[in-house]
């Protein structure tokens, strides 16, 4: 068991992904959207099972039906919020309506993140071991509300700390069986990095942006630490600004010159790029990861995350 086999790789290709996407689109459009949850399940199954770590592939065990139930519930929740907002607005209480709606969305976001993480992790396995998310919804809501308000009061400055707190909480409660995770990024360093990145990008008329992205990627990856039975394995990024430039520029042309049809190839290129540039420093004991999580099947947050366009990790 050498360190060299403990890394991620992607085995899918653009053509297969494109085929999957185009079939998904066909069926989704023909069924006026009803097929969408099954399309998402097929997509997640494909991308997961084509991702390999140390010789074994991941597996996504969710299915379209679970996602469908979640989607229906999700639509009802969002619809209720909008309905309430419109009712209050037309009943001559637009100010109260906006205020309540803002709060509703504010609480909805941690709800979505929480449920989505719970569902996705529990449906994903590696060598039969389920991932898990053990965060507490109330804690996440408190964190979100506090973070949002402080960010507003400080005209966005606190946002850096808020982002790091959120990331730390979510990753810190994510695990693969008996392998736990934590994120060590801090708001202060994150704020300074973004401030410098922003100014240098402006001064260089955008050229520095690729190095700013590299800094962000590094900060997201290098601060992830895996822990197993007291031993630690860190993640390390080997990305360079130049490599980012190459990835994004070529992706841009692939997508534009094909009027969007080439997007699947761009996605695969990006996945390959991410996996090739994440190294594991240290060794996990691959034979001894214990199953620790319970069965969890509720997909309510998952489709909402898609509908509300909330990106995870």
């Amino acid at each position, binding site marked *: 068991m050498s360190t060299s086999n403990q890394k991620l790789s992607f085995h899918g290709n653009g053509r*297969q992904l494109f*085929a999957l996407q185009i079939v998904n689109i*066909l069926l989704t459009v023909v069924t006026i959207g009803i097929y969408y949850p099954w399309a998402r399940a097929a997509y997640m199954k494909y991308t997961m*099972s084509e991702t390999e770590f140390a010789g074994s*592939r991941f*597996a996504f065990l969710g299915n379209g039906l679970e996602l469908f139930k979640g989607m229906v519930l999700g639509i009802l929740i969002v619809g209720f919020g909008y309905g309430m907002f419109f009712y209050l607005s037309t009943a001559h209480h637009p100010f109260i309506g906006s205020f309540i709606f803002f709060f509703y969305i504010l609480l909805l976001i941690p709800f979505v993140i929480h449920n989505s993480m719970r569902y996705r992790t529990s449906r994903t396995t590696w060598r039969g071991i389920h991932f898990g998310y053990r965060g507490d919804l109330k804690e996440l809501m408190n964190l979100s509300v506090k973070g949002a308000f402080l960010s507003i009061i400080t005209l966005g400055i606190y946002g850096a700390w808020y982002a790091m707190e959120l990331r730390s909480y979510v990753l810190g409660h994510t695990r693969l069986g008996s392998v736990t995770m934590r994120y060590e990024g801090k708001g202060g360093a994150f704020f300074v990095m973004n401030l410098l990145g922003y100014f240098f990008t402006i001064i260089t008329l955008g050229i520095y942006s690729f190095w700013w992205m590299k800094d962000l990627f590094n900060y997201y990856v290098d601060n992830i630490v895996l822990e197993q039975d007291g031993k630690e394995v860190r993640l390390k990024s080997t990305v360079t600004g130049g490599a980012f430039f190459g990835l994004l520029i070529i992706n841009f042309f692939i997508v534009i010159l094909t009027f969007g049809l080439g997007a699947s190839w761009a996605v695969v290129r990006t996945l390959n790029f991410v996996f090739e540039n994440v190294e594991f420093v240290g060794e996990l004991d691959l034979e001894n990861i214990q199953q620790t999580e319970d069965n969890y099947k509720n997909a309510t947050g998952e489709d909402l995350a898609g509908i509300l366009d909330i990106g995870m990790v």
Partner: protein
Amino acid sequence: MQESNLFEGQLFDGKSSESKKVAVLVYSDRLVIHHQKEDGTTETQSWETNKLKDYQKLAKDFIQIQYGDFPLQTLEVKSETFAETFKPPVSGFQKVIHQVVHGGIITILAITFVVFAFLGFAYFYALPWLAEKSVVFVPKEYEVKMGESIYQSYIQSEEIDTAKTELANNFLKQIDFQTDYPLQVTVVKSSIKNAFALPGGHVVVYTELLDNMKSYEELAGLLGHEVGHVKQRHTTRNIFRSFSGYLLISIFLGDFSGVSATVLDNANQLHQLSYSRELESEADRTGFQTLKHNHIDAKGMISLFENLQKGNEAGNVVPEFLSTHPMTENRMIFIKDMIKKEKPAHIEHYFLEGLFKQMTVPKADY
């Protein structure tokens, strides 16, 4: 000669990530799995084929199978023969999807073609039709409110000619537009020859257009046209159509790239322009019917178009497909045809003429 049904695999028992080397025997209705432990004893399991939880063919020679209740056990077999020998209970639908994903280029191209044909049909025919039909659900009061707020924000930055506005509203009241929308005209001081209507009943006419009119029938024709927009709910219909088209394009492209947002916006606008021309023609038709109903000489509309053409010689260079209005010649031809066909009777309206003379002054030097 019997083919071997014995294979080597890795079993993960779902309790830990330990990989157990196993021997796998394939039978018609089950898999039998033998694991030899360190102490020499053998563990055996029987997995019934129709009780498998999941099956993934990850490559020609790489199969992954899940079995059992939570926590699932996972079996990995890396053998091409196994992949061919073992027939999993995958649903026909899953098989089809798998065939497509790992299939030939012809299949992919065929499906892509079908998708585009379908989307094209939806975008150019089905959705616009559906959007049009849904306008019925927008209550009139809502259009009136919307138009009113647009009007209020618009009028802030404009100078109203109050005298002409009062006269114009008196003029308006003399004509039966056959609608219960609350109609109201405002004359705005401007050197642009234009007029427009808002949903719900507000009509705005610029002084440059009004002052260059030769007869009250022209003004009546203009008002008939603009009120036609209101009666036919053109702005609302345009919004619905535009939005549904945009929505379809962005659903199709949305997951892929946000850069195309500008492209699709422009493409959608180009398509909407042809729709706008349709609406303008419809407004011309409605205006003509209003004049006919009120026994006002429809030739007024023809002079209106001549008037517009005079002010816009430079503007007529715009090719029709880029224009929001049909070419003026075509509009004139259309009205002339309608007059020939319907031969509307008309009378003189001295009261309207009187109001009109008060409204229009000879072109002064500004």
